[in-house]
């Protein structure tokens, strides 16, 4: 897939290994995401999806292998450094600032030097997806419900004006109607030009909006291909789509 274009992929993960102590969690993982693509990353619980995203964003560093973003080697950059390059990670466990209000959270995450128009259009986009947040701008994040916090987490990522989003279970704990809306919204954000690597247990919905997908099993990439093809794969249907 990636090879079809001569251009360099926006994100290239090459032969990454990673262990927690003795437990090997990622084994020689390679994948790539082209500019403007929406790629889904599927896998059962404990397969290593979260770990991979953390390796990419710089929350952790691969034991070996390389990660390139926009042509640059970012393997050992810290998370704030990849953020500066436009690679924004929305983590599975949210990692919010409980004592801050939503407004303060947004202010922190908005890149400095962005002009006012851009900032307000970012905000509009967020409130369009999560209308519930607008009325809660001054509520402390720590007092919000689980689902509300999930919304704040995703919004914080969007306020960072990303070139590429790493989304780890963005619909976790959200009510069904909202979860569906958000997947729609991710699709729209992608169409508007943001590259996306999406981890989701809602495999079918994810494949619906994805261009391509990878399947991670026990730390290894076992399948990859265009979303439509994977959706037909027996293996995927059985394991991840529940069929």
């Amino acid at each position, binding site marked *: 897939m990636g090879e079809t274009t001569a251009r360099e992929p926006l994100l290239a993960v090459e032969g990454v290994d990673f262990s*927690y102590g003795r437990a090997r969690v990622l084994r020689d993982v390679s994948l790539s995401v082209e500019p403007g693509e929406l790629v889904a990353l599927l*896998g*059962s*619980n*404990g397969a290593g999806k*979260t770990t991979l995203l953390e390796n990419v964003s710089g929350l952790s560093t691969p034991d070996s292998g390389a990660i390139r973003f926009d042509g640059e080697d970012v393997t050992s950059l810290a998370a704030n450094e990849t953020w500066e390059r436009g690679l924004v990670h929305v983590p*599975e*466990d949210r990692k919010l600032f409980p004592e801050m209000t939503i407004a303060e959270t947004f202010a922190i995450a908005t890149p400095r030097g962005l002009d006012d128009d851009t900032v307000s259009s970012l905000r509009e986009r967020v409130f369009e997806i999560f209308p*519930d947040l607008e009325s809660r701008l001054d509520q402390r994040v720590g*007092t*919000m*419900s*689980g*689902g*509300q916090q*999930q*919304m704040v987490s995703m919004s914080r990522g969007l306020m960072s004006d990303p070139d590429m989003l790493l989304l780890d*279970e963005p*619909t*976790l*704990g*959200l*009510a*069904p*109607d*909202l*979860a*569906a*809306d958000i*997947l*729609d919204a991710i699709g729209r954000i992608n169409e508007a030009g943001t590259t996306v690597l999406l981890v989701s*247990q*809602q*495999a*079918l*919905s994810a494949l*619906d*909006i994805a261009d391509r997908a990878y399947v991670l099993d026990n730390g290894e990439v076992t399948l990859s291909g265009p979303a*439509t093809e994977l*959706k*037909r794969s027996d293996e995927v*249907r059985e*394991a*991840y*789509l*529940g*069929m």
Partner: protein
Amino acid sequence: MALLELRDIEKSFGGLRVLEGVSMTVEEGSIQGLIGPNGAGKTTLFNLVSGLLRADNGTIVFDGTDITDRAPKHIARDGVGRTFQLTRPYPGMTTQDNLLPGLVYAGGYDRVSEARARALELLDLVDLADLAHEESRDLTMSEQKRLEIARALATEPKLLLLDEVFAGLSHEDVARQIELIDGIRDELDVTILLIEHVMEATMTVCDRVGVLANGTIIAEDVPDEIVHDEQVIDVYLGSGRDEVGTGADSDATPDEDVPETGGGLDG
């Protein structure tokens, strides 16, 4: 017989009225679901039942006694166990040790050695026996959720409150978790009230489902009825979609031939 009965529960945070008169019952031996939009007050309700918060108004009756103003420790000993939506294992303890406090203080295991043995049995039940000696902070989120189930069971509860224990599970794991919960009800004789956004799970595992929205219970019925309830679709499931919980995926693409059981609109 109703094991748990909530009558006209009201709760506000500052100026924000979250619960405006919630009444519901949980029949002994049943698995009762509780769904509702984000921020509806479901977790708050759990906090009220387990005693971590006090209701502004209303009554909570558990197993025939009024527990509205009882302290958490007593409610736990009375037989209410719970898990936390944002998981809270005892982080520095091993998985096995996590179960000891509940076992000795509410589960009736006065001898520590017996408690340790029982802890292993419970870990086995939730499929964590392999991780018995790991520090619980190192577990993945789904493992922590299962640990919390075991820890709640350690108090030998009559009623188990589960807050989104299906969130983030793959289809395979959802199926396994459903078995686990069925087993807990059937074999351990525990009544279960669970909050869930994973409709696939809710609809399969629950005998009845209550829907909390706008501060009250807007519907309460068997799952099949709930998914067709106009109001519920409107505030929670999402309108204009295919059936949820029974088959078709809401965002079904041209590949209509690929249905996704359970809608997968989970969290």
